[in-house]
Structure formats: C-alpha cells, structure tokens
C-alpha cells in the first residue's frame, strides 16, 4: 500500500493505493474506483471516481507543489509521502515558532512607504507600511500590539508574495 498525505484547502487528505488492486484507491480510508486519463499531452486530466466525472487542470509551482483547478476553483496542493510525514510528526508540529510574529507580503507589489522603524512600539491595527499592487494602495497593519524587531524592506522596493517585511516581537 502506498500512502500520501495531501494538503489541500486547509486540510489534509490521506490517499492510498493498493499495488494489487489497480484502479482502486482510498481517499481518507474510503475505497473508490478511479480512472485517470491525461487529455492529449496537455496538463489536463479526466478523472472518473465511482462514475463521477471530474476535469482537472494541473500546474507545477516550483518549490510549492501543485496547483490544481477543478470546477472553476483552484487549489494549491502539497503532497507528502508517508515516511516524510512520520518524520515531521516525530519532529513536532510543523512550522510554529515562538513569540515573534513575521509580517509577510500578502501579495506581490511595490512598497510605497514604511511607517515604522526597529524598536518602535506599535498598537494592534497600527499601520506598518503601504504596498501598491495592481494600482491600488493597500495598507498593511500590525496583526497585534508589540515591538518592531526588524524592518526588511524600504520604500520603492518591489517585493514578491510571501516576502518577509516586518518582524514584531
């Protein structure tokens, strides 16, 4: 049995195949009959799962996993195999750090201005900086009260989505 833990839309789905039963799979422990066909040589797949028909489009996002579109929606998906998952479990819950709060760019954009400096005390919802994206100026505010530990960007800088902007203590 091959097992994968798939992270999709904020939850984890366990998918398993049995090498001895081709065309069968288990989704969160429920057995399904599945037929998967790639359409032409396009990254488009037709899945029949217990007779239900689905059409999915797939894109690789390097370093991030897969982006899968179905029924008008698009999901960012990460797949772990069983062993990797076991290791992660032993190492404790993933990705949760201590008392500091990173503020990351929620979208790519241009930093128009920065309203705080390292050492500043900020209140919750106080403006940290302004990010221009798609011709709109977006105010980024402090998610909680705290002290600014570091500011990683300056005005005029272009930032990618997820870029660390400010760290609050």
């Amino acid at each position, binding site marked *: 049995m091959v097992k994968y833990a798939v992270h999709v839309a904020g939850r984890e789905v366990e998918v398993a195949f049995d090498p001895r039963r081709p065309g069968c799979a288990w989704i969160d422990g429920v057995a399904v009959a599945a037929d998967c066909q*790639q359409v032409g040589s396009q990254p488009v797949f037709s899945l029949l799962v217990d007779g239900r028909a689905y059409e999915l*489009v797939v894109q690789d996002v390097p370093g991030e996993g897969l982006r899968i579109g179905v029924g008008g929606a698009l999901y960012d998906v990460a797949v772990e195999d069983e062993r990797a998952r076991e290791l992660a479990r032993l190492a404790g819950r993933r990705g949760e750090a201590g008392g500091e709060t990173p503020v990351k760019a929620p979208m790519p954009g241009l930093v128009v201005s920065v309203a705080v400096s390292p050492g500043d005390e900020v209140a919750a919802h106080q403006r940290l900086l302004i990010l221009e994206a798609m011709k709109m100026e977006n105010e980024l505010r402090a998610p909680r009260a705290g002290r600014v530990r570091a500011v990683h960007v300056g005005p005029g800088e272009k930032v990618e989505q997820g870029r660390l902007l400010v760290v609050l203590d």
Partner: protein
Amino acid sequence: MKTPFKKVLIANRGEIAVRIIRACRQLGLGTVAVYSEADRQALHVRLADEAFCVGPPPARQSYLRGEALVEIARRSAAEAVHPGYGFLAENAAFAQMVREAGLVFVGPAPDSIALMGDKVRARRAARAAGVPVVPGTDGEVSDVAEAAAVAGAIGYPILLKAAAGGGGKGMRVVRAPEDLASAFQLASSEAHGAFGHGGLYVERRLEGVRHIEFQVIGDRYGNVVHLGERECSIQRRLQKLVEEAPSTALDDALRERMGQAAVAAARAAQYENAGTVEFLLDADRTFYFLEMNTRLQVEHPVTELVTGLDLVAMQLRVAAGEPLGLRQDDVRLRGWAIECRISAEDPANSFLPSIGTVGPLREPSGPGVRVDSALYHGLAVSLYYDPLLAKVIVWAADRPTAIRRMRQALGEFRIGGVHTTIPFHLRLLDLPEFRMGAVDTAFLEERFAPADGEPRDAGVVALLAALLTDERRQRRQAALAATVDGPASSGWRARGWRETLRRW
C-alpha cells in the same frame, strides 16, 4: 459603414481592446493595436490588423502616453482613436490632443469629459438640470481639517472621493472621525497616482442603497436616449464585481423617471457618444446622481444583451457623424443579463492579486453565454495592470434562468495557473439574498460570509495530486534502476493509469 475614417487605433489593452477590435472589424474598419513591452503576446495584438509598441510595461510609459499614441495613429494612418475604459478614456486633454491631430476621438467632446470628470462641477451641473444629488461638499476640500468639518456637518459615514476620479480609485469610506486622517492621505495619494490630481471632495455615504446606473448614448444632432439601467450593487472596496440588467429594484415607472434624469444629465453636458449616469437608489425609491462616466463601461455587455444593440458599433457610428437612428421608444428590454468579472484575485485570501502564468484554459460557451476575454494559455499575469482577465456574461429569458446559466458557465470555466474570483461568484450566485435580488452596496462587505467548510472537490484533487506524485517517483526510481539493471516496470498500476500518466 460610410465613415470619415477607415482605420481605428485602439488605445487600450486586455479584453476591452479585443472587444473594440471585434466591433471595428464587423463595421469593415481596420484596426491598429498598441502594446507595451509586457503585452507583446497579448490577444489584442494578435487579433488586430496592425500592432505597434508604445513603450515599457508601466502604464505611464506606455498606455498613458497620449503623444506616443497619436504618433502611432499618424504613422499607421489610423484616422480615429477609441480609448476603451481606464487609461486615457476620461482624459479631456487626450481627447483634445487627438482632435487637434485631425483624428476622430471615439467618445464625447473634451468639454463634456472635463465637465463630468470634475466631480464637483458635475454635481453642480446635474443639480442645475434638476437631477437630485447626494448631500456633500460643493467643491474640493483643501485639507483634512476641512474634510473633518464637512464630515461633522453632514454626519458619518462619509465618502472621500477623488475630484478627478472614477472607477473606484481614490475613494475611501470613513466611518469614524479617528479614521479620517489616514483615509484622506491614502485616497489623495491614490488619486494623485491614478489621475495626476490629488484633490478630494466629501459626500455623505448613503447606506442601504443600490448602485443603479443608466447607459446613455447621444449623437451630434442632439439626440440622446437611455438604454435602461444596470444593477451594480455587488461591490467590494467600491469595485463592481457583478452587474445585471435590468435591476430587480426598478419597475417601468421608476425606470422612466430615472432614465429621464439620466438623459437630462447627459444633455446638461451636451453629451455625444456613449456614457453612463450613476445613481444611488435608496429603499424609498429615491435616487441621487452620483457621477457620470464619460466612456464605455466595463459592464456594457449586459445592456447589449437585453437591448440587442452593439454599443461599441454605435459609438463608432455616432463618432463618424451618423445620427443615432434610434428613438427612446425603439429601445426594448428583453430578458435578463448578468455579468461576472473574472479577475486574477484569490477570493479565499482577501481577494489579493494572484500573479502567475495561465495554464490550460477553456472558456465556457453555449446558449446564452458570452465571454469577453483577454485570456490565453501562456498569459503571464503581472502587476502592471488591472487584474481583470475576462467577463462572463449570460442572457436568459428570466433572472432565475440567467443565474442558473451563469452557475453552469462558471462551473465550466477552466483556468490553470492563477487564482481567480470564480469561486466567489459561484458562492454568491447560491445565496438566497442574491437570488431574491435583495442586495445593496454594503451587502458584500457587511453581510457576505466567506466560504466555510471544506471544498466539495478536495478528495478528487488530493487523489490526482497523489497519483501524479507517485507517477513521478516511480519514474525517478525507474530511471535510476534502468542504469543498474535495465528498464523497471511500474509494477502494480493498471495499464490505463500508467499509459495515460506517462506523458505527465
């Protein structure tokens, strides 16, 4: 079409450039596209007869360079310029520049643009024409202090609006005095960035109102008609997301009154060509002039579908000096039309812009479905321009059927690679409030709950992701094994799966 021009330069990009190309070609007019360096591969470049580069990606260095556009028109022997919406569409100086170059501007006269573009003068003109306006300042406010004074007088919530604005840019709702300073600064700065003028004025923010707008069109012989209303109350941060025609809030009597007011406002601006008069309509069926947009509107297709008219073709005809050829009595509304704007924004993540490259694509089609789009497989969605990718517009004999048709169309839409607003629209279409047409401009921001619960298709998405991951791992192992002891078999999987996944 007998015209003083045979070739039109389209001073725009995206879906509206494609839309204008289609109208021109159907009238037998040649088309000249312009493109920034980021848009070399764009659909409007490929569909036009001719295409010329107008500068680097930032709009200020390309689509906003009026002189460069006029120069391209001259070089390509285009004799008219269609500005689309956005960019220079409501820039009186550009319209003037086009005229002075001996070209036809497909839009109203510079004076009309200037009058309606100055929101303060526009309010005065509307009031003079007997059209009620929203309470607010009669001129720009010079600073935060003056804004605070006005706000105190008319009462919060208020709306700060760019005097030179339009399209929701340079606007902010302010609900409490303590938020005024920050909002003023942002709106002014945004207005300056978007329109080159940071001046603001203050209006009462009416609550529980609908945004109802009337399409008008006039010719140079003084004929002005309205083509009915559009319901545009589904807004987020003052940006429209869904529009329909007609509105569930209007009956024939109110339609006639508001339509007459719209025509009166247009006449006050000696209006020629297509324009839109925006109103707020409250629960008592009282309406207030909001502003007039002196251009083609993003949501013009819903009007086209219920009237059977081609608005862009009409724009070109009246710009060519033809009479409208349409009296108010000739305008008949039939059925119901709805438009959903499909933008590269992630509704599950606060509508933040989603950049990326568009993958496999299938746009919906079939009975009653129209798609105005600039999408293509390979489109790199960037931050340089508006995130609007496509508009899905449906028509049906009645509103419930139109809603079901839109649901079906959106469910068929496949766009790989970027997040879009489609899931938002699908959710909205299912809400009882929307189905009953019981919406106002605050509905989305105040009473629309983001989706909860897990998505319906998470299981099948997970299954495919696991299959693909496993296939890749098998292939890596097979490649490794092949170097040691010949090609490996992928073992357990069914022939169908193996064969069909191998190209992945």
